């Protein structure tokens, strides 16, 4: 077991290395750099620019060095907790994104829980009541959720939340609680504001998950041991829950790997619409103004988060299912 975990852990390293190269080249690709944008902006507003200062800044941040040197210093810095410097906010990146990343993580985590809580019972119902009216309507609802663009759903739900429940619009908490220490009131406010983003981000993933658990459970229900259990007179609920359900649980956990990137993606877009204080709005701003270290470290962080999430799901799966522990990979 320990060997498996260690192996999986080291398999992460090349993945992250490739990801860092990819992200760095994407960030480097646009012509010009932040200083050019900055100078152009200053000139447009009629201010004079001291070329020496710009030259100094360039040197300070290593923009006179070749690309590969900058790449290595970026990666080297990241392994030491130095994520570079945001030119726009004139603060270290780590200061800027710490709390936002926490909120992104929290949001993703709650969304996964939501997806599970919704998909579990519906998936089981759909599988045991195959082709029934309920099965069809759940499938249809799920498909609608899949087909509606997330951002629009967020917008419309925000409106109705305001009209029906009086929730303040936008943000992850009421404005009064910003910069306040954690309290029950703040917690409640955050929980209240979390409902819409979680539901909106969750809809797409839930539909896919219901379909998958239904298919898996259906396969399982056809097997002989289920028939035996039924023939012996086991009550229907127990028949389903005792073994077939446990089998399909594996797929649930294995699925985290595939839905986590989607959830983080969805969280970004929804966050922009709802102006949540997560990574989304900051990322898009950084991308537009070529604040490259901020954008790069952000993307890298999201990649690390997802890879770790997948790792955790793999390990959990290995604990749950001895076959994977022994064979080294999940059965599909």
């Amino acid at each position, binding site marked *: 077991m320990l060997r498996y975990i260690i192996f999986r852990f080291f398999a992460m390293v090349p993945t992250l290395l490739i990801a860092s190269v990819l992200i760095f080249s994407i960030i480097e690709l646009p012509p010009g750099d932040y200083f050019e944008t900055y100078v152009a902006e200053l000139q447009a507003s009629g201010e004079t620019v001291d070329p020496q200062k710009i030259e100094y800044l360039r040197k300070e941040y290593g923009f006179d060095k070749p690309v590969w040197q900058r790449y290595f210093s970026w990666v080297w810095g990241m392994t030491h907790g130095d994520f570079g410097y945001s030119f726009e906010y004139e603060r270290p990146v780590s200061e800027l994104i710490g709390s936002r990343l926490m909120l992104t993580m929290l949001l993703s985590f709650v969304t996964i829980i939501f997806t599970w809580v919704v998909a579990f019972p519906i998936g089981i119902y759909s599988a045991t009541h195959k082709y029934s009216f309920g099965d069809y309507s759940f499938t249809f609802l799920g498909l609608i959720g899949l087909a509606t663009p997330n951002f629009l759903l967020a917008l419309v739900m925000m*409106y109705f939340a305001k009209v029906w429940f009086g929730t303040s619009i936008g943000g992850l908490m009421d404005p009064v609680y910003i910069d306040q220490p954690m309290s029950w009131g703040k917690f409640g406010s955050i929980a209240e504001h979390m409902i819409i983003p979680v539901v909106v981000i969750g809809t797409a993933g839930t539909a896919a998950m219901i379909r998958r658990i239904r298919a898996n459970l259906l396969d399982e229900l056809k097997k002989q041991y289920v028939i035996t259990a039924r023939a012996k007179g086991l009550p229907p609920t127990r028949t389903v829950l005792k073994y077939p359900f446990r089998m399909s649980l594996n797929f649930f956990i294995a699925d985290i790997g595939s839905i986590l990137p989607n959830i983080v993606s969805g969280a970004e877009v929804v966050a922009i619409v709802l102006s949540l204080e997560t990574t989304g709005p900051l990322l898009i701003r950084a991308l537009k103004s070529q604040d490259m270290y901020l954008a790069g470290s952000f993307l890298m962080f999201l990649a690390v988060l997802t890879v770790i999430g997948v790792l955790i799901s793999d390990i959990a799966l290995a604990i749950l299912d001895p076959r994977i522990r022994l064979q080294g990979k999940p059965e599909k």
Partner: protein
Amino acid sequence: MNDSSLPRPGKPLGHYVSTAEFDPYSIEQLTPEQEKYFFASQRQLIWWKFKKHRVAYWSALILLFFYVVIAFAEFIAPYELTRRHQDSIYAPPQGVHFFKDGEFVGPFVYQRVRTLDMDLLKRKYAANEAKTYRVGFFCDGDEYKLWGLIPSSKHLFCIRDGGTLFLLGTDRLGRDLFSRIIYGARISLTIGLIGVAVSFILGISIGGLAGYYGGWVDNIVQRMIEVLQSIPSIPLWLALAAIMPVTWSPLLVYFGITIILGLLDWTGMARAVRSKLLSLREEDYVMAAQLMGARPSRIIARHLIPGFMSHLIASATITIPTMILGETALSFLGLGLRPPVTSWGVLLNEAQNISVVVLYPWLILPVVPVIVVILAFNFMGDGLRDAADPYQ
């Protein structure tokens, strides 16, 4: 055959050939239906199976309808894409009526009267039931050039005598939303196709290489796919879209976006191709081709790919909705297509504000065709995937 032709006892039997026609299949006679089924080409089998899948079949018809509409967008849209009606800014949808005073008179609309509410600073539109305008068919309206070539001014339907016909209302510049949705469909529906074509080519060639050669090529490709799948796609799209210079012409941006969508989407396709190839390359007919001196590219393209092409096409169909949604999201966030190019995402960009939802709810109507198209592609993809394996 009668008794006299039999030899006498003790003599050998003479050589006899029956003159009756010989039918080797006489024992297992096929009914016409069976015959039709057994001798059908693969394409026919797929078609029959697909037709049986009612939902998929109807979805395909709906999609076909959409594509016919975008082919003749100029003719079907009642107004030109950029035609502005200064008197009807933010006008709500107009209802089309058929009966007047309990009598059928054909489609018509009531006159619109605009008043300004000075308290709310809002334009108000009311119907004046005294004055009606007939809706005509195949009549003259805004001039256009069909496919940029054929000048014409005929429209499928338009309003007579200088009235207005805004089936889905107008936007902040007084442009007809219905016409803009039709023109926008042109971009939104083709972007998915081109994007899928890009990812299809990438997926087949990269997955093909990995699957055929195996070994370290396979390893590198596998890692690449893993990385691409583990990074959340929308932030990556955003980053790539931000690269495109602002100075690019709208057409270049359009192609840029399709390529970005395709660039990140090939992974699933490559995986499918790879796993199929890994199992198929052990087949005897591949060995035969190798012995005859065929090159890898020929073996992959001539002998291996056709074996699961139909399956690939089916799975490609399922990824089209992701592309359409991706374009919509990018344009909505202002990093995708920009006006004057009109796509569904660009139209929805106007509805970005919550005040729009409250004051001008019809501006979020472009989401309806988005949902319909995505559902239709999903159902059709499901049906195609089932049908692609007609013997199952």
